[in-house]
């Protein structure tokens, strides 16, 4: 599957945007500029981008508590997102949602989600809408290795098969749910097999390799788009930060994080691959880096200057109309 150069650059730009967004958010939390609970996606960029590069605005995704990466990859306005995290009324969600509820339904982003496995049932609904309408849109839900143990996730998988809808279940195994290892929380030895036992194919990818995820996601999405029912993607890749900002990460093995950053960095790996194939030059990627850094700088600057919400806004946006 040869990927056009423009798409390669775009994929890299997206991954880099996620990386810099997250690193900057981390810094601004430390600075006391961002309130609430925030979960960073750094290290897992290839999953979000490898999947979303196959999607249009009419396809939907639904994300998790660790949602920034998915939203950026699906085309959310990065400046609006930063403003949202800062709690501005000019934020993507007017400062009402924050990190755990970033959303842009017009872009097919049905939201980050603060409830573990809250998303898959909703994604099945979006897929069902596509089936009823007879268009060929697909609906992607992201779940973590911990999330797959929640009943709603299983229900959604079985229901998607029963209704034969184009739902794609992306399972991101970053080895931990909070402070607990997948080795403990998933009882069986083979999560991929447990997922497939529900009755749909699951495509596995190295989650530190954009190209691997892109290929696996491509197969899954093609399967679903063609009317063959749901499919899964199973990608493994660690996260670089704690579960949430502030997590002491007592669960990590010695050298684990160093190894992750060293050998399993989606951005480094992408650059290495490009150096190998020569499809995109280092200078071109450097230029993207510079653009992204400028964008994130601008986002933070704008977010700091953005208007703050006022008390009257508290009761707005609950309903469309309410007598």
């Amino acid at each position: 599957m040869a990927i056009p150069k423009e798409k390669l650059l775009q994929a890299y730009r997206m991954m880099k945007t996620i990386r810099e967004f997250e690193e900057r958010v981390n810094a601004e939390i430390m600075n006391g500029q961002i309130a609430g609970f925030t979960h960073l996606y750094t290290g897992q960029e290839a999953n979000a981008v490898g999947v979303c590069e196959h999607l249009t605005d009419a396809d939907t995704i639904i994300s998790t508590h660790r949602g920034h990466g998915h939203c950026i990859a699906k085309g959310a306005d990065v400046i609006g997102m930063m403003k949202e995290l800062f709690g501005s009324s000019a934020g993507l969600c007017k400062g009402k949602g924050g990190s755990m509820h970033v959303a842009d339904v017009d872009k097919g982003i049905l939201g980050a989600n603060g409830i573990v496995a809250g998303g898959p049932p909703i994604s099945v609904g979006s897929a069902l809408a596509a089936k009823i309408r007879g268009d060929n849109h697909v609906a992607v839900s992201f779940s973590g290795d911990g999330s797959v143990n929640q009943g709603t996730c299983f229900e959604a998988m079985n229901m998607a098969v029963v209704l034969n809808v184009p739902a794609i279940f992306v399972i991101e195994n970053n080895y931990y749910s909070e402070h607990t290892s997948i080795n403990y929380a998933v009882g069986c030895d083979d999560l991929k097999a447990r997922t497939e036992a529900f009755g749909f194919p699951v495509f596995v990818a190295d989650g530190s390799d954009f190209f691997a995820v892109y290929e696996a996601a491509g197969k899954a999405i093609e399967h679903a788009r063609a009317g063959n029912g749901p499919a899964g993607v199973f990608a493994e890749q660690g996260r670089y930060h704690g579960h949430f900002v502030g997590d002491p990460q007592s669960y990590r093995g010695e050298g684990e994080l160093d190894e992750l950053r060293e050998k399993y960095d989606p951005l480094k790996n992408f650059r290495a691959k490009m150096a190998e194939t020569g499809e995109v030059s280092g200078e071109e990627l450097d230029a993207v880096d510079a653009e992204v850094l400028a964008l994130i700088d601008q986002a933070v600057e704008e977010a700091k200057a953005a208007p703050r919400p006022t008390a009257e806004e508290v009761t707005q946006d609950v309903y469309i109309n309410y007598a």
Partner: protein
Amino acid sequence: MPEKTMRDAINEALHQAMTEDDSVFVIGEDVAGCQGAEGETGSVGGVFGVTGGIYNKWPDRCIDTPISESAIVGAAAGAALVGMRPVAEIMFADFIGVCMDQIINQMGKFRYMFGGKSKCPAVIRFASGGGFSAAGQHSQAMYQVMTSFPGLKVVIPSNAYDAKGLMLTAIQDDDPVLFFEPKVLYQETAEVPDEMYTIPFGEANFVREGDDVTVVAFGQMVPKAAAAIDALADEGISCDLIDPRTSSPLDTGAILESVEATGRLVVVDEAPPRCGLTADIAGLAADKAFKSLKGPIKQVCAPHSPTPFAPELEAAYIPDAGKITAAIKETLA
């Protein structure tokens, strides 16, 4: 006007809404029936028969599901987020227990959490309340609990006429609506026009008008309250009987106006007493109509117990006309 049961009135509303609008579909357990079986698919139409005939006309918009209530509500919520108008059936309101997150934390909060930039026009239907000797897990009203959650609208029809009009409003409404059908009223009839009509949310119905006491009642308590009030006419006591029809939004104006006129209030519901609608409305009046009050505000409801099985016990559990009469007299005492 033709007489129809509440079941048929709701069924008619569904048929008419689906005829008019392609984005309406129904989803739930056995809403068609016989899927995968040798019998005729569609021959069930819901265990209470409310979705009868839909599969036969619109097989693609009558979605049978596994027993997975969270996935049912989620499917409705997700489809609504992308522009459909699903009407999901959760067989018994008690089953909210297995799908509450999708109702209160997902469907009901999208719009707010997303900064007002989405809509979720889903309707979830529930067969609600007691009266069938169905015991603790199949008899709860549950609508009082759902009223607590901002972002949801809560409808409780008390007769076939209202049920049809409220259902048509619910389907057209752009916010998520929970529609509680008192199952003991499914077979009750009223005059129901054949044509489509809507009844606005947040507008109470004055079932009776009177001067001495304001009675507010919900769902299956409305006919019981009416019976109690009618019997009291002989004793020279006349009451307003207000059926709010929707508990969220609530027609506070109608209730307060009536209480200001009568000075006395009795609130009736079949749910247990704690943090329920009877307290909710009593609290409203004790603040906003305080100056007019001439007697204690009485609440008539079930005791603080689960619903018992034995018919005698259930009869003692669910408020009846006798208890309503007693409360009216107490507030007059």
